[in-house]
């Protein structure tokens, strides 16, 4: 069937900000879909609130709306654009939920918009538990005995009937929010209560637990002619019980017979047919390891995280094909993009093994519960490819950037046998490392580990192959045979070095002398059956033929940013992609190295050559040995790429852009101080100390509060603000190990306005596309602050100073490309906080709103162009007449024991943007887009620290003026009452009747303004919360707001801005949209 003739304009809904359970995979899917639709001559209207994505670039869709993903805004855009069709299946659960709401509200009907891809009925059949059950029963597909409950008593009754363990899943949520496994009644009650809250429709499914069974997934496609194919199947290393997003996954399945493989494949086809989906679908199964019995666990009637993984694992572009199907084509009419000869109507054949490994945020939230269950906790993932499982799993492990390069955690090496064994039974992020440790020591065999973990023995034998070789390397002479065996099981040179007591360089040289080099193979969807055109490669030592031919063209390598994690999100993938595009525009062959399957950068048609490999010195050098590029660009791949700069340069590789030495001058505290002295730029007074006494003396001189942190940190790790000597002593003894080699920095904490600048320099000129002012005062991590472009409160003198300082710093650091600087403005003075000689989190945001192609320009400059040649002159680009606000988005709902209060340690996982000609409306869009429910009336709870009480009074008065009812804890209420305003006193937590938590739970409070009391200012330790802090009232109140979806403002600065929005709301309409093209084009009327 050819393209649907009546379709001219299609609206695509993106997935919004990155949160746990919904990450960069939807940028990949959405960008691919938009491009596929444009290829068909369709006009594409895109709506997504996330500015950090490629899909919200003005060239991806004809009309790009960076607006909140709410029904109100979508209706506004639909009424304006009048699209013929709506494609919502590429925007994750968020997109799907919105499609349902738009249909239910009659918007689609009113504007005659055809829902493309998945029919509404299918969404309901897959998402509504009762309908799902009915549908599966009709098909004869087994599902675990279950029931839908809307109250706790029914849940308990059912559990008593079928017995424990019982799984609880809320309806209409993503990433399993609010679900869990209950082993007894007490646990059941707790989980059900929470699940009911999270469900959009107040329903939870409780069902028989099949924990311990094999978990298998299928990615299926169907077109309007009812042709169905499976793209890929996947097997989870972790048996049922761990959310698939938190599981190590292999593709294809490894331990299934053909019969089992086909049995589940056929079931998947029956399901997608029954649902009538046109596009992609994901089906998850639990397969009994001891019989042919299986259960359907879940069906996602849309493109998902797994489909992004399947696309990268097979080379089959699911999102692209889904978009073509939505436009009317059938699978046999769509060309296989990889072979360019065959059609998309086939099933990919893999001739390699793929491993996906989740990346968890436990390095940031060290006190968070690391137990893995039905609620997803990973922020991102890595993927790896090799000809065997051993090679693939070790590649994955070293791609994680969690300080390991093989299946060994340093801390476990120090554990006694009993402790290692005990950890085998703990289902958490470290389990695979405990298994490897046990195998390495020989304290448990495969059978015993299987008994404890239920992980299939096939996987365990493979891990044992690795540890056996490790043990041999430790004991034997490294012969060529042993070296080859080591490389065949995927051990890195660094690991072999560590095991044999040599250096990595020695091993590398030894290995190369032995002639043991990797071969590169192609991912081609067809196991080499047909010639392929795709430049998508992976390495293996398990081969004879290197099939990758190197071109003689001018080429440059771009290093990607690895897995999505807190502090390094999709922004850096955006930058990598733009750098690749810039190189290609320049006629240079762009080679990208990255390991994140969710991203646009690892889409095989982005670069000239894609190497899906770990970002370590060895893996990158191996590719460089082969490709011999002119040089490497490291400034766009976040800290991941920057960290490789020195070792690559040492190996003789040219690093384009700012030199390794200058990067070090910016990052090393002492050397940076020299730069500041030389440029005469002030920074907050500070000292570097190597013992507690010096810290106390120093802090006394500087004056409390002080900001303390270890000297080598990134993303604000282990950074705290301490208010007195007692806290300082506590910090020094608890959070850091201070030694002469690892000094601690003690800086004056300045409560000023934080300002962030991104600039581009060629060593002569410095272009500043824009300046951003933070709403929250310094002390809150810049990534967690609301940022406003252009600044709203800074005087021209301050701005002039900032421009001047930025120029001076860029030139002093000989920056060639991008740099990011954070300033604090206090009492009319500008101080520099830090300089990052690389692209930053704000580059995509700023590029979009200023219309300066920052990465493109920076790439050209790094390769030798001058800014003048490119048409830029030194100084700040004239600010735009509109305002753009970037607001952070958190995943607190997924991390139960994390304090939501903000501090120097970054906690947000994503961001949204609001843009408008009115600051207040831009702000409204940003905070609405970020998911904050701003109440227009009702009751506000105030509970603030003593230090904030004075400032709070005016705020309370303003809210009172707007007609809000105020309630407050005793002390705060007293302060409010002192200026003659009514505020009811509420009891503290557990003061029974008027308990705050009860009030939040029962919906009597609509917003909370809570600042931290001194002494509890930062959660203890590096992120997360200590058990002591958990017991505090403030923590309980804050968590209660998360669990009940109530806005909780932990900074008075944020509260003032919310107030501004509320006042504005009285005067103007809030829902008003323009496309990005209208803003940057300067056209359209003002609202």
């Amino acid at each position, binding site marked *: 069937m050819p393209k649907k003739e009546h379709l001219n304009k299609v609206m695509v809904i993106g997935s919004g900000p990155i949160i746990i359970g919904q990450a960069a995979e939807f940028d990949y899917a959405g960008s691919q879909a938009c491009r596929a639709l444009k290829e068909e001559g369709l006009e594409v209207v895109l709506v997504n609130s996330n500015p950090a994505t490629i899909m919200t670039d003005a060239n991806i869709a004809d009309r790009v709306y960076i607006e909140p993903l709410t029904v109100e805004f979508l209706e506004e855009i639909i009424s304006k654009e009048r699209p013929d069709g709506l494609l919502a299946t590429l925007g994750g659960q968020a997109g799907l939920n919105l499609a349902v709401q738009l249909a239910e509200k009659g918007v689609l009907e009113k504007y005659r918009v055809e829902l493309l891809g998945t029919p509404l009925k299918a969404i309901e059949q897959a998402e509504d538990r009762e309908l799902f059950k009915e549908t599966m029963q009709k098909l004869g597909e087994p599902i675990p005995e279950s029931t839908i409950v809307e109250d706790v008593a029914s849940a308990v009754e059912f559990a008593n009937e079928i017995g424990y363990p019982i799984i609880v899943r809320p309806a209409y949520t993503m990433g399993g929010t609010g679900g869990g496994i209950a082993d007894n009644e007490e646990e059941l009650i707790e989980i059900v209560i929470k699940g009911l809250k999270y469900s959009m429709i107040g329903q939870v499914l409780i069902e028989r637990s099949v924990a311990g069974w094999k978990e298998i997934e299928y990615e299926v496609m169907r077109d309007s*002619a*009812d*042709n169905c*194919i*499976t793209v890929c199947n996947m097997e989870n290393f972790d048996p049922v019980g761990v959310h698939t997003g938190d599981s190590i996954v292999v593709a*294809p*399945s*490894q*331990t*299934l*017979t*053909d*019969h089992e*493989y*086909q049995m589940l*494949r*056929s079931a998947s*086809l029956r399901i997608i047919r029954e649902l009538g989906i046109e596009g992609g679908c994901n089906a998850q199964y639990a397969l009994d*390891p*001891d*019989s042919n019995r299986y259960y359907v666990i879940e069906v996602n009637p849309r493109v998902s995280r797994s489909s992004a993984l399947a696309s990268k694992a097979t080379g089959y572009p699911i999102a692209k094909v889904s978009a073509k199907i939505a436009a009317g084509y*059938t*699978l*046999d009419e769509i060309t296989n993009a990889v072979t360019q000869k*065959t*059609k998309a*109507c*086939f*099933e*990919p*054949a*893999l*001739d*390699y*093994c793929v491993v996906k490994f989740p990346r968890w945020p436990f390095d940031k939230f060290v006190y968070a519960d690391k137990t893995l269950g039905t609620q997803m906790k990973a922020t991102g993932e890595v993927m790896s490819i090799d*000809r*065997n*499982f051993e090679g693939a799993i070790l590649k994955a492990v070293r791609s994680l950037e969690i300080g390991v390069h093989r299946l060994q955690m340093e801390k476990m090496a120090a554990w006694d046998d009993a402790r290692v064994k005990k950890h085998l039974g703990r289902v958490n992020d470290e389990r695979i490392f405990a298994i490897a440790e046990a195998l390495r020591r020989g304290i448990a065999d495969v059978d015993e580990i299987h008994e404890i973990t239920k992980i*299939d*023995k*096939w996987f365990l*034998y493979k891990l044992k192959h690795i540890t056996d070789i490790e043990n041999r390397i430790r004991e034997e002479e490294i012969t060529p045979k042993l070296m080859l065996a080591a490389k065949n099981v995927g051990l890195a040179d660094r690991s072999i070095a560590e095991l044999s007591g040599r250096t990595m360089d020695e091993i590398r040289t030894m290995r190369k002398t032995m002639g043991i080099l990797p*071969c590169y*193979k192609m991912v081609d969807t*067809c*196991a*080499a*059956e*047909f*010639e392929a055109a795709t430049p998508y490669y992976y390495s293996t030592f*398990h*081969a*004879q*033929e290197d*099939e990758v031919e190197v071109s003689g063209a001018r080429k440059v390598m771009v290093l990607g940013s690895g897995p999505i994690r807190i502090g390094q999100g999709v922004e850096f993938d955006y930058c990598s992609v733009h750098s690749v595009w810039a190189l290609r525009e320049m006629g240079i062959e762009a080679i990208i190295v990255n390991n994140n399957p969710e991203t646009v950068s690892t889409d095989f048609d982005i670069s000239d050559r894609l190497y899906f490999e770990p970002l370590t010195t060895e893996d990158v050098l191996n590719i460089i040995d082969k490709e011999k590029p002119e040089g490497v660009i490291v400034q766009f791949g976040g800290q991941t790429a920057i960290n490789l700069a020195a070792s690559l340069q040492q190996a003789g590789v040219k690093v384009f852009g700012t030199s390794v030495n200058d990067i070090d001058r910016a990052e090393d505290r002492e050397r940076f101080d020299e730069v500041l002295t030389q440029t005469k730029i002030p920074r907050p007074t500070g000292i570097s100390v190597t013992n507690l006494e010096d810290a106390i003396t120093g802090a006394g001189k500087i004056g409390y509060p002080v900001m303390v942190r270890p000297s080598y940190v990134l993303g604000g790790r282990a950074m705290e603000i301490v208010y007195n000597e007692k806290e300082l002593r506590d910090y020094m003894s608890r959070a850091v190990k201070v030694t002469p080699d690892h000094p601690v920095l003690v800086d004056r904490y300045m409560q000023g306005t934080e300002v962030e600048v991104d600039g581009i320099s060629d060593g002569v000129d410095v272009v500043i596309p824009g300046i951003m002012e933070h709403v929250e005062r310094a002390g809150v991590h810049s990534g967690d602050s609301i940022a406003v472009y252009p600044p709203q409160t800074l005087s021209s003198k301050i701005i002039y100073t900032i421009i001047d300082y930025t120029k001076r710093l860029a030139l002093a650091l000989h920056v060639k490309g991008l740099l990011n600087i954070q300033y604090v403005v206090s009492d009319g003075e500008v101080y520099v906080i830090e300089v990052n000689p690389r692209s930053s989190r704000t580059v995509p945001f700023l590029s979009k709103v200023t219309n300066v192609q920052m990465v493109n320009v920076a790439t050209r400059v790094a390769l030798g162009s001058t800014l003048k040649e490119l048409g830029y002159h030194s100084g700040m680009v004239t600010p735009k007449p509109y305002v753009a606000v970037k607001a952070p988005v958190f995943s607190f709902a997924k991390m139960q024991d994390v304090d939501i209060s903000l501090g120097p340690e970054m906690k947000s996982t994503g961001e949204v943007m609001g843009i408008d000609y009115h600051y207040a409306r831009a702000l409204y869009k940003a905070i609405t887009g970020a998911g904050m429910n701003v109440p227009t009336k009702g009751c506000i709870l105030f509970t603030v620290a003593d230090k904030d009480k004075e400032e709070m009074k005016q705020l309370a008065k303003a809210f009172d003026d707007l007609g809000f009812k105020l309630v407050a804890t005793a002390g705060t209420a007293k302060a409010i009452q002192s200026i003659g305003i009514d505020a009811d006193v509420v009891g503290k937590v557990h003061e029974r009747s008027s308990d705050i938590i009860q009030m939040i739970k029962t919906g009597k409070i609509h917003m909370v303004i809570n600042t931290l009391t001194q002494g509890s200012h930062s959660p203890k330790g590096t992120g997360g919360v200590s058990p002591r802090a958990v017991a505090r009232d403030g923590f309980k109140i804050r968590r209660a707001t998360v669990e009940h979806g109530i806005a909780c403002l932990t900074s008075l600065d944020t509260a003032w801005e919310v107030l501004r929005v509320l006042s504005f709301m009285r005067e103007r309409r809030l829902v008003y949209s323009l496309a990005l093209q209208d803003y940057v084009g300067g056209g359209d009327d003002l609202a």
Partner: protein
Amino acid sequence: MNGKLILEDGSIFTGKLLNHSKATGEVVFNTGMTGYQEILTDPSYCRQIVTLTYPLVGNYGIAELFMQSRKSFVNGFIIGELCDEGSNWHYEMSLADFLTKQGIPCLYDVDTRAVTRKIRSAGTMKGIIVSEDAAQTEIDELLAVPIKKEVVAEVTTPSVYEIAAEKEDAPHVVAMDFGVKQNILDSLHRLGCRLTVVPCHTKAEELLAMQPDGIFLSNGPGDPKDLPEITGEIKKLIGKKPMFGICLGHQLFARAMGADTYKLKFGHRGSNQPVKNLKNGRVHISSQNHGYAVDEASLRGLPLEVTHISVNDGTVEGIRHTELPIYSVQYHPEASPGPDDNLYLFDEFLTMMKEG
């Protein structure tokens, strides 16, 4: 011990030799990711050296249940990793033990992707498996061994046997066994057929004397051109009873009708082959294993129509007699290994028999 695969064009692929054994045969590749046991025991691979593109083989061991014939008829097996720690509840023995027991030379730890790339670009060719230290004379000798033709006689049942049906009035299918896969018989049996399986050299008269309701022409190894006698017998059967052919049976039917067959460059072997049904435009994924195909041009003027084509290369995948109840397909609706999307073809046979 180390061994190697030497192709007749001189290319060498190294690996490890499972048993000290050697082999000569036509080297073909299969892209299926599961089903190594079904592939090994599919008689259509008789005398061939089979290489698998999926590199991890033996993961779930071997079980009697999955045998597609009484033994494996392959001449050699070329794979990546030979897994000797299989894990599955069906597991009865390891793949290595099975290969040893069946006396099949196996070269493992081979870069099978390199082998596949060679064959897909140069075409199917003869190859030998030898130990690393084989003398040149031995290599020359092995390479000189001709590829045996007419191997159907080797794989067919030596004598007639019956598979009873549960119901008395079950349709009676006589299956001509050119190397039939067990699951074809099982699929027909599951649909309620009574089966009589006859050797390949059975005469038309003998066969008709069994009073079949339908005749089934099975899959099997080799070039259909090498089987003129069998073709002659099939010719006699046309028009007598409803008939259904699979793979070699399909080619023999076409030849019996006067059509021609030819050798494909490297054949279709895998579980992911898309086939388009020209009647309704629907595409199904099929399991395939064939090195020869029916020449579409040769069908002109014959009472045959093309019903199915390969989506990948447009070659003929199914034909039907325009007047008589006879049809055949080039691919394997019985799967094992592969997807069971095409079981409907057996249903059609049943309907045909009922309608007489």
